[in-house]
């Protein structure tokens, strides 16, 4: 492999390694908004197109976040709808900074999530998977499960809260290890 191909391979490695943190960063700047995956992919495209501008050894994550921030702003402008409320921009910036994680920390969370999902009851796990895998509404799950959407919504809230607690507990356990 010549040096150019090697550099490209290393760059792809950096993009790949940072996908999860980049996605989290984008969500932190547009919580609850549609189009996160599109913004992520546009950011990936720009990163690839500008790859020659990246200096190996410098902070890839900071560079990628700067590009993603532009893409989020662009997306928000394009999809601006009067009357739609969101958090103030300065607060979003503050929160985005507060939420920054390294790829290693994010990987730990993904592994912890996997373990915590294993502790859920079968019905709870089905509900979570329906919500995140199918993308369909709770009404759809309601008709199949025989439970009201309101009841499912309460359960979903409780399951997410439990997952959060479980993940934080496992991460604390990891850091307590020698």
């Amino acid at each position, binding site marked *: 492999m010549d040096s150019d191909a090697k550099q490209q391979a290393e760059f792809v490695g950096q993009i790949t390694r940072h996908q999860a943190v980049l996605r989290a960063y984008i969500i932190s700047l547009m*919580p*609850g908004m549609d189009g996160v*995956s599109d913004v992520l992919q546009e950011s990936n*495209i720009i990163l690839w197109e500008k790859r020659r501008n990246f200096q190996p050894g410098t902070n890839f994550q900071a560079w990628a976040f700067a590009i993603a921030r532009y893409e989020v702003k662009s997306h928000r402008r394009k999809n601006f709808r009067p009357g739609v409320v969101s958090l103030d921009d300065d607060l979003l910036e503050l929160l985005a900074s507060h939420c920054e994680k390294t790829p290693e920390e994010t990987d730990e969370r993904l592994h912890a999530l996997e373990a915590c999902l294993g502790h859920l009851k079968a019905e709870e796990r089905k509900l979570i998977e329906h919500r995140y895998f199918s993308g369909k509404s709770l009404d759809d799950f309601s008709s199949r499960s025989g439970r009201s959407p309101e009841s499912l919504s309460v359960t979903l809230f409780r399951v997410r809260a439990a*997952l959060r607690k479980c993940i934080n507990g496992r991460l604390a356990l990891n850091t307590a290890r020698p």
Partner: protein
Amino acid sequence: MNRRTLEAHLQSLFEGCLDREGMLALQHELRSSPEARDAYSDYLHLHNALQLRAEGIDMLHVVPMDRIVERRHRRSLRDAGLSAAAVLALAALVMALVIARTPPAALTFASSPGTVLAVSHLPEDGKIPKGQVLQPGSRLQLSRGTVELEFASGVRGIVRAPADLTLQREDLLQLANGTAWFEVPAKAIGFQVSTPDLILTDLGTEFGVISEDNFLDEVHVFKGKVELLNLSGLKEKETVVAGHARFAESAGRWKKIPLRRDLFLSGLPDKETRLSLVTVEEFSGNQFAYASDASGSDLLHGLVPKAAGWKLENDASPLELTDGIHGAGFQEVPGDMVQGAWTQVGATLEYDLGAGANGLGYDLTSIRSIADWNSAGFGNQAWTLEVRPVGGSYRILHTANYHPLIEQSLSGGGATKVTLSDESGVLAAGIEAIRFTAGHVANSVDNAFVWRELDVFGHPTVDPGGR
């Protein structure tokens, strides 16, 4: 806010279903409570992890480049409306990883952040070029942003959107529309650019070309010289040297215009193209339409501009542009006298707004321009607006190019109105001076128009820190 309510609000936020009242309450909590920000972080990462898991991406092992390409392909096709057979250059995202060595391309290109483009190829040998390259027959459509072109011959170009170009030969670029700057080294003398109005042959130089629909094409020469051939009417040829500019007049002659280096970029910008500017263009067959829109209280009212290049016959005066009078002061036979400004291509008006009440200049919120006359063409409008921040230098904010009255009969009247605003509420902040330059409109005598009213609205800039 108690813990349960906070968590419910955070979950609703990431679900996209938090109402206004909840948003305000959550915002207050997030600003004031470090614990709330920690909870926000937890739910953000939980939401992200669940979605990643649902999408089936193993972040540790899978290179999602194929997904990138697939999406890019779909989006570009949708954006540009290309046929299914079109091949996007960005397929090179993957191919570049596999094929380290490719034959030298006739032209390679790079783009600035936020650029949206599509590339289609017509390969004679059936082989699609790999990477961000153009071969003879390749077409690049740029709907947003800027691209840098690097020809194998050493020619370098910067093209701004909107643009549509086709590489006809390695030394001939067809620019259907767009604003392009080129630097041609000595070894590439003879390089040509064609537009719907002209063919330019380089004689060793640096130059800019503007080609727009309903607009006569322009050439600006910064170094060396070029040979121009007008493709219309008389098909005049002219050699233009450094420091001069021409537009291709529709009868086939070349007309002098002021040289404008600031209309062109000579490098890729590192920031995305401005997207939030909102332009509303309206026209009417009634010469006196929009009379009630003229303002006598905007920022320009009462200001005396520095003016150059205007026609002053028939009582026309650029000073009347900001008098707040439109329609009310005409004579009984409309059009007898010019109550307003009579442009010439390249005429300028510069208004000094000053530093304002806070010493920080003005935030411009909207701009309204009205043109009209009792016969075709003069009621259209074409102009460029530049703004100068306090202590800074001029930059272009917008170019209006509005020609809806071209088909109107000579006996009819008509008016146009162009209004600029910005989704953010502010077009430009901290501005101390603005400059308008008249462009050329189609189908009127000397490509002039009659500018009736120009209103600029805004307020003194406020220090966000309250100092």
